[in-house]
C-alpha cells in the first residue's frame, strides 16, 4: 500500500493539539483586536501599542523578559502537577509564601553575597514546598480534593504572609505598606543595563530544562506521568501512587516558591504586595498553552508576557484598560480546555484518510 495520503492531513493529525492551541491563541488575539476596535477612540495608537508595543524599545524588551520570568516558574509548578493529574491551584499561595518567608529570611540574616543569595533562594523554595505538601498529603492519604484545599490555602498564605511582613518586617519609614529593603548581599545581579532584567531569568530557563529532563528522562518523572495518565495502571504496576501524588505537589510548590523569592530578589528588592499578585493563576494559562510540557513553558510564558507588557503599554499610550489581557487569558484557557473544539475537523480528516486506504 503506497502512501497516497495528503501530507497536509498527516501533518494536521500528528500535530493536532499544537495546531489547536495556535488557533486558540490567534482567536484570543483576534478577540483583543475586536474589543479595541469597538471601544477605542484612537484605534491606531491603541492597536499599535498593544500588538507592537513590547518590541518598541530596549526597556520594553527587557521588561518582556522580566515579566516572563515569574510566569515560567508558576507555569512549571502547574505543569508538573497537571502531568500527575493533580488539580492543585495553590501555586499562587506558594509564590506568596516563598516571597514572604524568603524576604523575612534575607532581611534577618547577614552573610557574604553568594551564600546569602543561595540560602535565600533555598528558603523561598523550601517554604513553597512545605506549603504545598498539605493538599498533596490529604489527597494521597484521604482522597480529599486538592483543588478546594489549595484554593483555600491561597488565602491563608495571603493573610499569614501579610501578617509576617506587616508586623515584623515592615519599613515604618516608608509611606506605603512595604518591607525593609533586602540587604544588597541578597539581591540578584542585573544582566541587561538600563532594565531590571536579572539573573533570575536565566535560572528560570535552566529550571525549565531541568524539569524536562526530570519528567522525561528519570524514573520519578516517568512515575509522575504514569500516575497522571492512568492511576490504576500505575498502582497495578507497583508504583507507590500516594508518594508520587505528594512528590508532584511538593516539587510544584517548591518551584512556585522559588519564583516568588526570585521575583522579590530580582525586581522589587523589597516585599510590596498587598494582595495576591496573580502569577499562580497566570501559570494555568502558561501550562495549558504549553500542553504541560516544561520546554514549551518557555515560549508559552513569553507569549503571555507579550500580552501583559502590550496590555500595560496600551493602558499607558492608548485608551483601553490593561485588564483586557485578563479577559483574553480567561478565553484562551476556556477554549484550550474545551477538548472537543475543532474535533469534528480532525474527525473529518481521519475519515478521509480511512476511506483513502
Amino acid at each position: 500500500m503506497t502512501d497516497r495520503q495528503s501530507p497536509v492531513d498527516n501533518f494536521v493529525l500528528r500535530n493536532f493539539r499544537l495546531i489547536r492551541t495556535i488557533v486558540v491563541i490567534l482567536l484570543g488575539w483576534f478577540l483583543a483586536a475586536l474589543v479595541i476596535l469597538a471601544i477605542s477612540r484612537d484605534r491606531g495608537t491603541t492597536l499599535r501599542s498593544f500588538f507592537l508595543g513590547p518590541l518598541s524599545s530596549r526597556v520594553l524588551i527587557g521588561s518582556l523578559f522580566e515579566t516572563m520570568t515569574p510566569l515560567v516558574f508558576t507555569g512549571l509548578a502547574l505543569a508538573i502537577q497537571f502531568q500527575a493529574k493533580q488539580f492543585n491551584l495553590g501555586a499562587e499561595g506558594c509564590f506568596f509564601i516563598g516571597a514572604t518567608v524568603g524576604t523575612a529570611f534575607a532581611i534577618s540574616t547577614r552573610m557574604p553575597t553568594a551564600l546569602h543569595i543561595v540560602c535565600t533562594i533555598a528558603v523561598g523554595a523550601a517554604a513553597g514546598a512545605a506549603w504545598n505538601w498539605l493538599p498533596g498529603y490529604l489527597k494521597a492519604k484521604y482522597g480529599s480534593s486538592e483543588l478546594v484545599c489549595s484554593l483555600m490555602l491561597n488565602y491563608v498564605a495571603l493573610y499569614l504572609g501579610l501578617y509576617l511582613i506587616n508586623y515584623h518586617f515592615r519599613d515604618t519609614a516608608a509611606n506605603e505598606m512595604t518591607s525593609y529593603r533586602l540587604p544588597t548581599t541578597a539581591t540578584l545581579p542585573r544582566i541587561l543595563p538600563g532594565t531590571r532584567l536579572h539573573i533570575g531569568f536565566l535560572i528560570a530557563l535552566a529550571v525549565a530544562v531541568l524539569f524536562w529532563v526530570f519528567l522525561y528522562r528519570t524514573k520519578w518523572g516517568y512515575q509522575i506521568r504514569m500516575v497522571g495518565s492512568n492511576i490504576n495502571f500505575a498502582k497495578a504496576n507497583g508504583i507507590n501512587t500516594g508518594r508520587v501524588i505528594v512528590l508532584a505537589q511538593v516539587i510544584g510548590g517548591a518551584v512556585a516558591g522559588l519564583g516568588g523569592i526570585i521575583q522579590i530578589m530580582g525586581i522589587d528588592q523589597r516585599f510590596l504586595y498587598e494582595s495576591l499578585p496573580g502569577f499562580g493563576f497566570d501559570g494555568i494559562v502558561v501550562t495549558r498553552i504549553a500542553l504541560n510540557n516544561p520546554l514549551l513553558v518557555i515560549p508559552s510564558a513569553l507569549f503571555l508576557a507579550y500580552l501583559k507588557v502590550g496590555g500595560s503599554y496600551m493602558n499607558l499610550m492608548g485608551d483601553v484598560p490593561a485588564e483586557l489581557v485578563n479577559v483574553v487569558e480567561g478565553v484562551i484557557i476556556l477554549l484550550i480546555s474545551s477538548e472537543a473544539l475543532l474535533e469534528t475537523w480532525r474527525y473529518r480528516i481521519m475519515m478521509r484518510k480511512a476511506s483513502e486506504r
Partner: protein
Amino acid sequence: MNAILKSILSLGFVAALLRVTTPILLAAIGGAISTMAGSKNLALEGIMLVAAFVGVIVSAFTHSVWLAVILGVAAGVAVASILAWCALKLNANIFIAAIALNMLASGVTVFLLSIIAHDKSYSSSLQSLVIPDWNIPLIRDIPIVGKILSGHNIMVYLAFAAVALYSVLIYHTPLGLRIRAVGQNPDAAASVGVSVFKTKFIAIVLSGVLASLGGLYLSMGYVSWFGRDMTSGRGFIAAAAVALGVATPLGTMGASLLFGVVMAISIYMSSLQFPAELIQVWPYVATIAALVVFSVRDERAARKKTGRDVVGSSGSRQ
C-alpha cells in the same frame, strides 16, 4: 474574652451572622444542586462577581432594583451556561473551565468598571441602589423575637427559603429525582431515557441563578457598591460548604452557618486590638479543617465498606 462572649450573645451578632451567611448560603445551595447532578460548580465565585457587577451597573443606570436583580441573574446564568456548555458539550475539564470563567469574570468586571465608572477598584462614582429590607407585619411587633426575625434584607429570607425550596425540588419533584439519578449513575439514568446532558445543564443553570442572587446581595445589600474581586473567595467557601454538607439541604445550610459564625466572630474581633490579618484568615482555615475532618470520615466509611484503600478510585471524588 469576656467582651467577645458578650457580643456573641447579643442581637447584633445574630444580625451580623445572617448578613455574612446569606451570600454563602445562596451560592452553596446553588452549588449543592449541581453537585447532586454530579457536576461540581467551582465557577460560583465568578458567577457571583458578574451578578454583583451587573446589579450595581443596571441599578445605577435604570434606577430599578428589580430590573437590576433580573439582569444580574441573567448575567450569572449566562456564565453558568458557558460552563455547562464547555463541560458537557466541548469535553472541557469542568474545574479548569470554572477557574477560567472565574478569571474571565474578574477581568471583565474590572475592565468594564474602568470604562463605565473610570475607576479600577470601586463603583462609588455610580449611584447604585440596594435591595430593600423586609419588616414582617405582626411579627415585627413581638418583643425580642420580632427584632431577631424581622427587618433583614429580602435576600436573607430568600436564602433560607432557598434551602426549603431545594429540599422540595430534590426530594419531591420528578426533576429532583432525575437530578439525583444522573448524579449517582449517569449511565443507568440514560438507560431509562433521562437526558443526562439536559438534566446536568438545568442543574448548572439553577446553580447559576442562586449564586447570582448571592452575588447581588453582596453589592446591593451587604454593601452598596461594587469592588474589584469583592467576592474574595466566598464562592469557594460556598463550594466547601457543599462538600461539608454532602450537598443535602440541611447539611449545606449547617455548613454555611458554621462558616458564617466564624466570619461573624472575626468581624467582632477586628474591633479589638488584634492583627486584622490573623482574623481574616479564620474562615479559610476553618474550611480546610472541615475538609480534613470530612475526608477522614469519608475515607474511613469507604474503607469499612470495601475493605481497601480509596486513593486509586478517588479520581471521581474530585
